[in-house]
Structures are given as structure tokens and as C-alpha cells.
């Protein structure tokens, strides 16, 4: 089932939490709302679920308009950030509560319970109480509870934020596989950009109640539309400047580091901008479109990468990643080096 949002707005007394958001989420898509805390992503999800009223605009599931309907009439499945498992009910009680409300026959309930628990690998834990389960298991019970009703839409509100780092990666993979298998339209809220990139078919990056960019993960990472998106997703170097020349394929930007060649963004010649270039695209070999001299100020060894902070004569700090530190001798602080990056990896962005 596809979801359509038209100019959806939510106002609180002093702020507008969600400000005229329009989105088209395709049938079977895993769609992520990504943004810092307070950006309105959870409020938007709660409006889709029906827990928050829509002040302006409309929400459609397929052709059915759902805003104004109570949550229980929307046929959604929701997984809450704190799981919201009912502590006085067993796993069986939690998972089958919705089925019992629908007065399904006992045999059907038992069948769906077994199938639901099998899907999330919890078979055998039917009689445990939530307090007797690990965090990862609780998370799966919450998922099973949402799925046994065969919902049209699955809504996930930061479902992994309460898990340990290792378990998080594992459950993340399980959610993705399950969602693929069921082909259920899913809206996923997170502030973790790595989670968003690895899981999603498409990502909407939000800020202050507005959607900044909607695109596939690779596009969001490599072709951000503005500085905010480039900064929030991954790590970036931002070099302020003024566009000097601009053609279809190239831009020439006047910066404190000298003239930089970059891909043109949405900034016309003569306009103020920032040039964004990711640390992994900067090398220390000193042979590319753009060359910058600097000194090592800090070296941080992270195992799979080595990150240098280079300080240039103009005072700009440039982060540089060495992707294969096994083959690289760590340079001492103060060593003069030359960094370089290709014009195709530098992008001109509006400074907002």
C-alpha cells in the first residue's frame, strides 16, 4: 500500500513541528525519516500512525484518506522506541492481544502466533514475561506484535536505539530481510545516519519540520542538496568561498585555499557558497585537480581508517582519511604534507 502526504502540518503552541511536508511513499518501500532530534520526524510518524492530529494537510493510505481516523482503524503495525510491551502480559499475551480484540477463532490465533514468533526467531518463548527477555528479544516481540495483524503499513520509531551496538547491527539486518520478504510498506524513523543509509530504499532528511531532500541513500550521501544534508549524513569538509565561474560541468570557486575546481551545485556565479569534500576523497599523494598544502595537527588511528586533521596556512582545517592504514606509516604532528582531491568529488553547495 502506498502512502501519500500532502502539505502535512503540525503546530504546537510556540513551534511548528512539521511544516507542510509532502511525500509519496511507494508500495513495499522501506522509507526512512532521518534528522536530528527535534526535527519533527517522530511527530510526522505519529501523525501517520494517528497518535497526533494533523493540523493542516492530508494523509492517504492508497486512496483512503486516513487523517482524522483513530489509530485502530488505520490497519497499521507500530514498533515503539521503548517497545511498549505490556509488562503484565506474556509474550503470547502481547502478540495475540490485537488478534483477540478482533475475535478471531482460537485455532487461527494460535497459527498466527506460531508464524509470527517463527518470523522473528522467538519460538519457545511464548510464556515469558517482557521483564524476562533481553533487549533484542523484547524488540523482536514488539515487531511480532505489529506484524501478526498483517498491517498495510509498518511504522518503526527508532526501534534500535535501546540496543547495544553489535545487536543493533544484527537486528537491523533482520528487519531489512523481513521487510523484503513481506514486501510491506515501512516508514522508519531514526537519527542514526548509518542506520538510515544501510536499511533504506529512500531517505527523507528533515530539519526544523521541513524535508530537505528525498532520495536513495547513495544519492543523499554523494549528491546532498545543501550544507545541512552534507553535514548531517556522514562527515564533510566545508570550505567557504565565492563562485567565480560556472558551466554545466564545472565550477571554479574562490576560497581561502585558492581557486578550487568542483562540481557545480545550485549556486550561480558571484554567489557565496561552501565547497564540500569528504575526508575519504582527499589523498596525500598530491596529484589531482585541487592541491592544498598543510601541516599535520592531529592523527587519529581508528583501525579501519586513519584520520588526519591538516591545518592550512589560511587557517582552514581539512580532514583527510587514509583508507588503508596497514600500508601507511603514521605521520608525526607538524609534518608538512600536500593534500589533493578531484573536482568530481568536491561539490558546490548553498551555505544553509
Amino acid at each position, binding site marked *: 500500500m502506498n502512502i501519500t502526504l500532502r502539505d502535512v502540518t503540525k503546530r504546537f503552541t510556540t513551534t511548528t513541528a512539521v511544516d507542510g511536508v509532502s511525500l509519496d511513499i511507494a508500495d513495499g518501500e522501506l522509507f526512512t525519516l532521518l534528522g536530528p532530534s527535534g526535527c519533527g520526524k517522530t511527530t510526522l510518524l505519529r501523525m501517520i500512525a494517528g497518535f497526533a492530529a494533523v493540523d493542516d494537510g492530508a494523509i492517504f493510505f492508497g486512496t483512503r484518506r486516513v487523517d482524522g*481516523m*483513530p489509530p485502530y482503524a488505520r490497519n497499521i503495525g507500530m514498533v515503539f522506541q521503548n517497545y511498549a510491551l505490556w509488562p503484565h502480559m506474556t509474550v503470547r499475551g502481547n502478540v495475540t*492481544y*490485537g488478534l483477540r480484540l478482533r475475535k478471531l477463532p482460537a485455532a487461527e490465533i494460535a497459527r498466527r502466533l506460531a508464524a509470527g514468533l517463527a518470523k522473528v526467531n522467538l519460538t519457545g518463548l511464548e510464556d515469558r514475561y517482557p521483564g524476562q527477555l533481553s533487549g533484542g528479544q523484547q524488540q523482536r516481540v514488539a515487531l511480532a506484535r505489529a506484524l501478526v495483524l498483517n498491517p498495510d503499513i509498518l511504522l518503526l520509531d527508532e526501534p534500535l536505539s535501546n540496543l547495544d551496538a553489535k545487536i543493533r547491527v544484527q537486528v537491523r539486518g533482520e528487519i531489512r530481510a523481513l521487510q523484503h520478504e513481506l514486501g510491506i510498506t515501512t516508514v522508519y524513523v531514526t537519527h542514526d545516519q548509518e542506520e538510515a543509509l544501510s536499511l533504506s530504499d529512500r531517505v527523507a532528511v528533515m530539519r526544523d519540520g521541513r524535508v530537505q531532500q528525498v532520495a536513495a541513500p547513495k544519492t543523499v550521501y554523494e549528491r546532498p542538496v545543501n550544507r545541512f544534508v552534507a553535514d548531517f549524513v556522514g562527515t564533510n569538509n566545508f570550505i567557504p568561498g565565492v563562485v567565480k565561474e560556472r558551466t554545466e560541468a564545472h565550477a571554479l570557486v574562490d576560497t581561502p585555499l585558492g581557486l578550487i575546481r568542483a562540481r557545480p551545485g545550485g549556486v550561480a556565479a558571484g554567489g557565496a557558497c561552501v565547497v564540500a569534500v569528504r575526508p575519504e576523497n582527499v589523498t596525500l599523494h598530491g596529484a589531482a585537480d585541487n592541491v592544498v598544502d598543510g601541516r599535520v595537527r592531529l592523527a587519529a588511528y581508528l583501525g579501519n581508517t586513519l584520520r588526519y586533521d591538516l591545518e592550512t596556512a589560511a587557517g582552514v582545517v581539512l580532514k583527510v582519511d587514509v583508507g588503508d592504514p596497514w600500508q601507511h606509516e603514521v605521520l608525526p604532528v607538524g609534518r608538512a604534507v600536500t593534500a589533493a582531491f578531484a573536482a568530481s568529488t568536491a561539490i558546490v553547495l548553498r551555505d544553509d
Partner: protein
Amino acid sequence: MTIERAVADTATAGAMARRTGWRAAVPALGVALIWAFLAVFLLYPLARVFYDAFSDEAGRLTLDNVVAFVGDAFYRRSLWNSLVLGLGTVVTTSALGVAIALLLVRYEFPGRDVFGYLTLIPMISPPLVGVLGFTFIMGKAGTVNILLEDWLGLARPINFVYGLHGVLLGETLHLFPMITLNVIDALGRIDPSLEEAAESVGARTWRRLAAITLPLTTPGYVAGALLVFIWTFSDFATPLILGVHDLLAAQAYLNIVQFVDRRLFRMGLVISALMVVLAVVFLVAARRYVAIKDYSSLSYSRVARRRLRPLAAAGAITFLSAVMLAAFVPYLGVALASVGRGWSMTPFPVHYTGLFFERVIVETPKYVVNSFLYSGLAVVLCLVIGVPLAWIIARTRLPGRDMLDGLNTLILAVPGTAIGIAYIRAFHVELPWLGVPLTSLWIILPIVLAVRRLPYTVRGSYASLLLVPRSLEEAAASVGATGARSFRDVTLPLVWRGVLVGSLFSFMTSLQEASAVLFLSLGGWETIPVGIFAFYIAGSANEAAALGVILIAVTAVSVVVINRVAGARVGGMFG
């Protein structure tokens, strides 16, 4: 989506819209009823007392009454005495209460658990019964004086209890657990790292206690101290039994019940208005103070108890034993008097008999029957009004929500004496259709009890509602439960414990209520406390004691049940 499905959906949505049409009216009606109840049975009577205090017999507004009050040296002295007594009791209960709380929470010594339970005992006996017991043991012809005369040849009995010092003693021994419970609760909320941090910068033992630990317990402590003050300030039964008349509450009672002199009656009204004003002023001041000093942080670990060295442990045990023994004296006195005959000029009764119990239970069962009937009805009212009220405060942003919260706290502060007087004035008008005033219908007693004890039910329910995250209800809604269904299946199973504890507290304290009920009770409506007061004033101390024993027994059972259900954490109930 198929056409059929779309049509079906639209039909469902239509049905839903119709249902929400009248369903939406139900909550609004409920809120209106709660407001109406509080307006009629709390705000209107209080307003009436203030109107009376500032008007004359013809209903004209005037300041004469207030001028007369201020101009009367006797009333001025009564006000002064009441304030001194209230503050004095706060000081004595604080010294005892804080010391006991610190010992129980922070130190390990033999018998610590037992003393923890014993601390609750003074609260089991209603103040009226406690003071009775005191007079039997510590009175001029009581056990202690007789023994002193027999053994030491004491010429004249020592006056232990009659007078302000006796009132102070009685109130202190009855009320110190309120401080103890609140401070224990507050100590449990202090994150151990705060004290460890103090220690790491060099603040040891006493320094740390004074600079860190005690200041952090102020919010809990202030709440307890406020209740101690208001309780002492508005108690008239204890002083009257101990022969002290020059206190505000006692004057209010005497002036109101004499029914002869209109001028004195009017003075009683002025005094009760003044008591309300003072109580509210102290409440607001305390709230301000607590609001700016709310340090509570939920800590998951506790400060480890220190084992006391043998000498210190002996000191702690001696101190606690002495306090508990003193607090136990009233029980001994009441128990002996309830079965003892010929107890005069002897240290202990000469004969023992069940006659007095027979008189108050078998011959006149009305005391027990009335007490249970009125308190039971009061609790039903508390539940009907209090649980939705708690839900409104905890879960909604309805306009007036803060005011409901404020009114609920106000009830805790308003003296029962003032409420009783207010009801006499406010409901002495004939009701339409019935042709009699509400004051001549016994239903007024359950109503006044419900109003007085509402805060306990509300607080118990509110606290447990806060512990149920809203997402649990939302999860129920997401799998198809309507609001009422999710309340029944999810919310109620998780909060009933807190609601029950609050209701039991309401019930227990309703049974003990003396002040408001004494004003409103008519012949045939007597509850146990009313009976105790009436018997004692009429000189039948033994019957009073027998009723006292019954009241203590019932209360003790309630306390045991509450402890079982709540698991010992009852301190928050008084905050």
C-alpha cells in the same frame, strides 16, 4: 485497493464518526461532573465561610468581626499559642524524625528492620486515641504518678500532660513518623554519586551530612513538616482533652458548638476563615520553596549502609527503643482502660472485664456500623471522582488541569475544623424537593469524608499512572483497542495497585477523621471517633478506650494490607 474495500472503509469511518459524536460527549460530561463536585462541596463552602467572616447578621459586608477578633487579647493569645505550638511540634518532630530516618536508611545495626516497622506504629493510633492513652498512664492519677507516689513518696503528682507541653508531647509522638517517612523517601532518591563527589573533595561525615545530604532531602522534608504544622494547628480534640482552651482550633470548636451566643458563633467563623488563610499561605510558601529546590533524580543505586561500631549501635538502639516505648505508652493505656475496672489510685486496673466492649459493640453497634458505612461510601466517592481526576492531571492538557491539581493539594492543607464549620454554614439551607437541608441528611458525612480524603486516592492513582508510559496505551491503540478497551486491558491492570493503596489510605484516614465529622454529626450518626470524644467528655473513659482499641485494630489491619500491596513505600503519599 478494491472498490468494495474502499466502500467498506468509508462505511466504517462513517460509523466511527457517528459513534465519536456521542462518545465524545461522555468525557466532557465526566469533567463537568468532577468540577461540579469540587465547586459545590469544596469551593462553595469555603467561600461561604469567608463571606460570613466579613458580613454581619443582616448579610451586610463589614470588617467589624475581624476588628473584634484582632481587638480581643484572648484571641490574639490563642493565635500566638497556636503558631508556637505548630512550630514547636515541627521542631520536635523534625529532630526525632530526621534522626530516625538517617539511622534507618544509612546505618546497619541489630534490630534495624524491626525498628523500621515500629516507626509506623504511632500513626496507627488516631491522635484522639493516643492522647486518651496518655492521660491513663501519664495523667495526674495515672500509672506513672501512682508508682512515683508509692515508691518515692511523691507528695503531689507531677503534671506530665495537662497544658501546652502535654499537647506538644502528644502531637510529637503521634506525628514524627510523617517526617521520618518523607525523609526516608527523599534519602532513597539521592544518587550515591552526589555524596561520593562530596567525599572526593574532602567533605567527611558531618560536613557532608550538613552540606549535601540534608539539603537534598528538603523537598520531601518540607512536605512532611507542612503537614505536621497544619495537623497540629487545626487539631482541637487533643488540646481539649488535655484541658487547653486558648488555641485557635479549640476556640473555633467551642464557639461554634455552643449555639447560644450569635456573636461567639460569628467569631468561630472568623477563626475558621483565618485558619484556612494561614494554611493556604503556608502551603503556597512551602510549594514555592520546594519548586525551586526540586532535586529529585531517579537513582538506581543506593548509598551503602554503614555498620555502626558496637558502642554507637548500642546508642542507636537505646534512642530508638526510648522513642518507640514513649510512642507505645498510649496503646498500653487505652488497652488497659478498655478492659480494666476499679483503676483509680492503683498503678494498674484491679479487675478486668469485657463489659465496655459489650457496651460499644453489642448494645450500641452504631459506632462501628456508621464508621464503616460512611468511610466505605466515602471511598467509593473518592474512587469515582479521584481516579478520573488523577487521569486528567496525568494524561491530558485540559484547560483547568493545573487548577484541579492545585485544588487537590489545597484539600490537604485546609483544616478539617474549617471544613466542618464551612459545611454547617453552607448546607444549612433547605434543598428543593426534599424540604430539608443537607445538614440533616446523614449522606453529608460520607461526602465530607470523601472531600477530605480525596487527595490520597488522587495521589496514589496519579503516581501509578505516571509509571505507565503512554506508549503502552498507544501500542494497544495501534493493534486495534479503543480508548476504553485499552484502559481496561492495559492501564487498569498496571495501576490498580496504586489506586488500591490510595483508596485504603483514604479509607483508613476516613475512619480516623474526627474534626470535620464532630461538627456535622447528629444523634444516631456517631462514628467511632465521635463516640470516643463524646464518651470521654461525658466522663465514661472506659467506653472511649474500648472504642479506641477497635479503631486501632481496624487501622492496623489497613496498614498491614497497604504494606503488603505497596511494599513499604508509602512516604510519597503525604508529599
